[in-house]
């Protein structure tokens, strides 16, 4: 029974934070916490991968530490750096002191001059934090290997100080947009969660939850329209973020239903590619028919 409570708690907490979850998301979070394993989340852009980490930090009432990856990121940028300028100034001040060289060295390479970057910071929090390693696929393979080492040992060796062991093991969440394939080694260390575009019902829930001022019929129409839009051959498929932007815009303007001219004039909120816009405008009547059928069926 305890597990049910745990899953229900996760679901309720996610809902409380405005995140509409489902069975696989709740299970992945539960197992990631229970097995103390990193969670790798993949899926198209705009489906709420990063949001899970933010919500988890709120659920666990702990700090969210974020490491945004990019091409060329290296260990010092993720781990620690010595504050050389500060060290040089300190050295100047020490010039007239009678301390021995060893003592001066000890002072120079102390934690005072250590600039903690996200990974080191996550290992040194008193309470386990949520460490979000965002868009890991953008980082180079060398960085991925380095990360692998840290995720398995939970300790960092700084030559001048020694080995720093984690005071608390962070809850690690990695996200990837699949810009490049991640290594098998990293995947094997993680639990895996794939988040796809939401189903119709889930999207309606998300819209009504995030845009409370919208009327239910319009929320259903928007969701059905987005579902049909994603089936088209688009250059840039719109995510949940675009659905919410559109819903907010229409609710702000006090519209209560979709019509052709309204969609034509506001389609730019949803589609960000000229070819997509043109093709969608050309097949609007057909799309509306499909939306009507979908609304009747659902």
């Amino acid at each position: 029974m305890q597990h049910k409570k745990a899953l229900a708690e996760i679901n309720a907490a996610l809902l409380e934070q405005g995140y509409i979850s489902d069975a696989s998301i709740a299970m992945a979070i539960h197992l990631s916490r229970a097995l103390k394993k990193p969670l790798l989340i993949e899926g198209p852009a705009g489906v709420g991968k990063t949001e899970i980490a933010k919500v988890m930090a709120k659920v666990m009432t702990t700090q969210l530490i974020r490491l945004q990856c990019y091409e060329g990121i290296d260990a010092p940028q993720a781990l620690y750096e010595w504050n050389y300028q500060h060290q040089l100034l300190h050295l100047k001040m020490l010039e007239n002191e009678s301390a021995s060289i060893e003592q001066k060295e000890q002072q120079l390479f102390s934690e005072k001059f250590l600039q903690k970057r996200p990974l080191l910071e996550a290992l040194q929090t008193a309470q386990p934090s949520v460490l979000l390693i965002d868009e890991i696929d953008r980082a180079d393979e060398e960085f991925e290997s380095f990360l692998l080492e840290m995720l398995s040992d939970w300790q960092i060796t700084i030559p001048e100080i020694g080995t720093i062991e984690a005071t608390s093991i962070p809850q690690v969440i990695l996200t990837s947009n699949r810009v490049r394939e991640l290594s098998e080694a990293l995947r094997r260390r993680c639990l895996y969660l794939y988040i796809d575009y939401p189903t119709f019902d889930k999207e309606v829930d998300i819209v009504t939850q995030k845009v409370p001022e919208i009327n239910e019929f319009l929320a259903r129409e928007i969701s059905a329209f987005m579902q049909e839009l994603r089936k088209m051959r688009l250059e840039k498929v719109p995510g949940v973020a675009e659905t919410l932007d559109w819903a907010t815009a229409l609710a702000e303007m006090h519209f209560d239903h979709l019509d052709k001219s309204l969609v034509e004039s506001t389609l730019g909120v949803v589609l960000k590619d000229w070819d997509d816009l043109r093709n969608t405008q050309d097949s609007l009547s057909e799309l509306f028919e499909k939306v009507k059928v979908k609304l009747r069926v659902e």
Partner: protein
Amino acid sequence: MKRKLSIDQHVIQFCRFLRENGFAVGPTEEVDVLNALATIDWSQSQYFKEVLRTVLVKNISQYHLFDELYTKYWRELKRAEDSKLKDSQERDKQSKAKQQAPSIEVIKNWLHGNPQDEIKEVAQYSPGVAKGKADLSAFAEEESREWSSVVRMLKKQLENQPNRRSIHNKKPGKISLRPLVRHNMRKGGELLDLYFKHPKKQKLKLVLLCDVSKSMDLYARFIIQMMYAFQNSGLQIETFVFSTSLYRATRLLKSHSLKKALNALSDHIEEWGSGTRIGDCLWEFVDRYGRSLLDRKTYVFIMSDGWDNGNAEVMEKAMKKIKGNSKKVIWLNPLASSANFAPEVQGLQAALPYIDALLPATNIKDLKYIL
């Protein structure tokens, strides 16, 4: 398969089943599943399945395959319980043999040492028998070494393409001023560490899209040999085959033996030797895999004769997208080796503006020529 199993036996059995289907599942994952099951009420089937999925699936293709394999596992188990497993397997085998596209079956026979039959079968399909024989007869087990060397040469050549980027390290070479100053500034401006510049090696990515429709029957051996050689060359490569639909064949080709790879291909690809809808298949590739597999470092090789029954507009749109998101698009056409060849077929016409090179490819010599 045993009739009654405990839960941990089920987990181990299921993991073994996944391993047979290309999942990298080892003892660590088995232990993880058992630990995870201890935290939930696994008597509820949906929780049990979710736990297995979360722990054992490691990438998107496994994610899409998992449901099918999970259902198949329990179905087979049920069959075993009904003591009908043996019969049904035989029936499956027979029906599969009937359904099997002849061309790949023929190649399998040939590979297992029956080359004569293959020539007869090929003769049934195409009027161009003489050409077909010439293209196919040179293919043999000992060619593997030659194939490996060709792929190695290709890899080397692609890696040595001019690259604007450079790496900086302490290995002697051309002095690199920027990192030299930057790193030594931290040490009070004393030049204690020297930094040198070296050209950065290209991180090669390849996507191989092979047409296995009926019109390409004659070149099936060449295609299989090429796919296998590329896939096992150590390159970062994804291989797809297509006819009327697209199939990701990467995991099927990752085998230590060509025979095993061929068996896997014939077991999984049912549409071998059917019609062609290149445009739809290429669009399916763009739509499903484009975002994850294509980038400015990716070379895309398309092996097809360009005969297309589909919509030319879709073909053009897909090719435009592939071209826009990759480094180079190279179209290998087996017909292009003919002196009278002109790219007049509908599919090729639509694709032509987006191709960097249209090259002949009927045998290994053509590939060497590309180099």
